């Protein structure tokens, strides 16, 4: 009988697949891992979520399920991104409390921090101002996870916490050009440009800067958080500040990994989104000073190779 039953919501997504990989590479005695997705339950529905918890009776939860989207989707559908995520998160946290889950780890994002802020961003700054208008629906819904974590802990002693990754990328991402994030968007665009022998166009000026974390590294860290991190306060999971790169530098890395030799254009009529979101990973380094992130070029190559070799299943 497993002593630890870990329910992972959103397990077929970018981060969920990476968690599956980490767990399968390092199986641990006494641990049972249950990976679920929308096929198993619509988490926007309270009864369906309750039934899922009733069925699996988890002792731990890694809550990755969310309605997500890139910049343009966020700008167009703020109600959906706000409401669906509020419902999903409330249903999961409430049922985690109801079923006596020992720890629930949810996933936030650096994009939810205040727009007007000093850099680098630290965990304590989460609620110090409104988020960027381009993704305020998603941002507020995610911020409410932290509010609920604190409320449940204060009133019931629940150990609900959260992680804050920076831009994640890897196999099983959403490579759709409208809905996906910047890295998979670039990969898919170059793939199409190569295939059709057309120029490759980057949206925006390329000046925006980001820290990218490989999903595999993030998954290792999330599993560590689930097992060892005892605070209710969130923890930023990111490469260090020095590893921040511009979208232009990123495009060049992907071009190299895909061996693209065609023309590269920048469509400056398109928004850059936030120009920077630099996050401080000092808290993480305090806990895990020796954690080694996968080399960026290698991670990009693995992601590109996955996309090229899995065209039939890749979300695009």
């Amino acid at each position, binding site marked *: 009988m497993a002593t630890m039953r870990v329910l992972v919501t959103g397990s077929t997504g970018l981060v969920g697949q990476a968690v599956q990989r980490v767990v399968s590479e390092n199986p641990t005695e006494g641990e049972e891992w249950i990976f679920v997705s929308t096929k198993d339950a619509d988490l926007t529905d309270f009864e369906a979520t309750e039934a899922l918890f009733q069925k699996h009776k988890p002792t731990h939860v890694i809550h990755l399920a969310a309605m997500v989207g890139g910049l343009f989707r966020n700008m167009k559908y*703020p*109600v959906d991104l706000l409401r669906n995520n509020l419902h999903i998160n409330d249903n999961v946290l409430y049922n985690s409390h109801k079923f006596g889950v020992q720890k629930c780890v949810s996933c936030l994002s650096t994009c939810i921090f205040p727009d007007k802020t000093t850099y680098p961003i630290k965990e304590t700054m989460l609620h110090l101002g409104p988020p960027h208008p381009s993704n305020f629906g998603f941002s507020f819904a995610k911020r409410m996870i932290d509010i609920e974590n604190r409320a449940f802990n204060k009133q019931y002693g629940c150990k609900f916490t959260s992680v804050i990754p920076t831009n994640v990328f890897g196999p099983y991402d959403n490579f759709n050009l409208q809905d996906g994030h910047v890295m998979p968007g670039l990969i898919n665009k170059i793939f199409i440009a190569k295939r059709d022998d057309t120029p490759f166009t980057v949206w925006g000026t390329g000046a925006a800067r980001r820290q990218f974390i490989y999903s595999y590294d993030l998954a290792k860290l999330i599993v560590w958080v689930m097992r060892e991190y005892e605070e209710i306060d969130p923890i930023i999971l990111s490469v260090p500040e020095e590893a921040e790169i511009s979208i232009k530098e990123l495009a060049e890395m992907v071009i190299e990994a895909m061996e693209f030799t065609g023309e590269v254009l920048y469509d400056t009529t398109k928004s850059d989104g936030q120009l920077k979101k630099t996050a401080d990973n000092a808290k993480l380094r305090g806990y895990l000073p020796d954690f080694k992130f996968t080399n960026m070029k290698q991670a990009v190559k693995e992601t590109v190779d996955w996309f090229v070799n899995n065209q039939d299943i890749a979300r695009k």
Partner: protein
Amino acid sequence: MKVLVTGGTGLIGKAIRHAVEENPCDGEEWVFVSSKEADLRDPKATKALFEKHRPTHVIHLAAEMGGMIRISQHNVEFLRNNLLINDNVLYNSHAMGVKKCMTALTSAIFPCEIQYPVDETNVHDGPPHDSVSGYAWAKRMVDVQNIAYNKQYGCKFTSVVPINLFGPYDNFSLKDGNVMPALIHKAYLAKKNGESLPVWGSGSARRQFMYSHDLGRLMVWAVKEYEETEPIILAVGEEDEISIKEAVELVVEAMDFQGEVAYDTTKSDGQFRKTCSNEKLRKYLPDFKFTPIKQALKETCDWLAENYEEARTESKP
């Protein structure tokens, strides 16, 4: 025009009803509902309520409320229940094509660490006070939803921020009530029992107080004329801010209380000031006349004395 007023039997609901009855307009129908008609935490019940009344406008006052102590002890419930209520009302307002939905927020939504006076642009500039956190965050999310619905669907959803109300039909509970109704109730009991009037704190904290009847008139104006998505603070001016000591003196006069007033300085004053700017309101209604506070207090004290048995004087368990 058919206006559905949720939470219609509370302090603000009664004040709106009073304003509407003072000035009835042709072609307007006002429906005041309470939790007896529908549990707004329930999406199906809320939908049924909207389908029954088919409003063109909504004034959303319903909330799970309470004093500071109750909110801080039941933070989860205050957060979740109010999130549910507000989401259901806004969602159904959109689904039914309501032309305008106006929600009452609270001054508790403002950040606890901020420079005063605050105005409408400060709502999200920092976390609210810990003691009212659940309630405040749920109310803030109304503003977020208003912006989202306007952006995605063009809905005219907005909100008002009333400041430190008092009036007939208030919650006069000594434990849960706001400062002015609690003072009025204490003065009533002190007079009745021939005791001294106990006041918590030194009396030096300062507040802007507004008569609920004035708020009622302003909200009727706002639901018809206020077109912005951003909230509007509904308050008397900064110049009308008074100390708690001055408020006590006014209540003593209105109640005709002759006994002694005892300030318990071991009790906290709370925040020294929470001044809100009513500049936006003044731009829209430069000539609006607030009821003089002496008259407002007299009317409220008289109402409590006449309606003590029916008034909300007990705190909720």
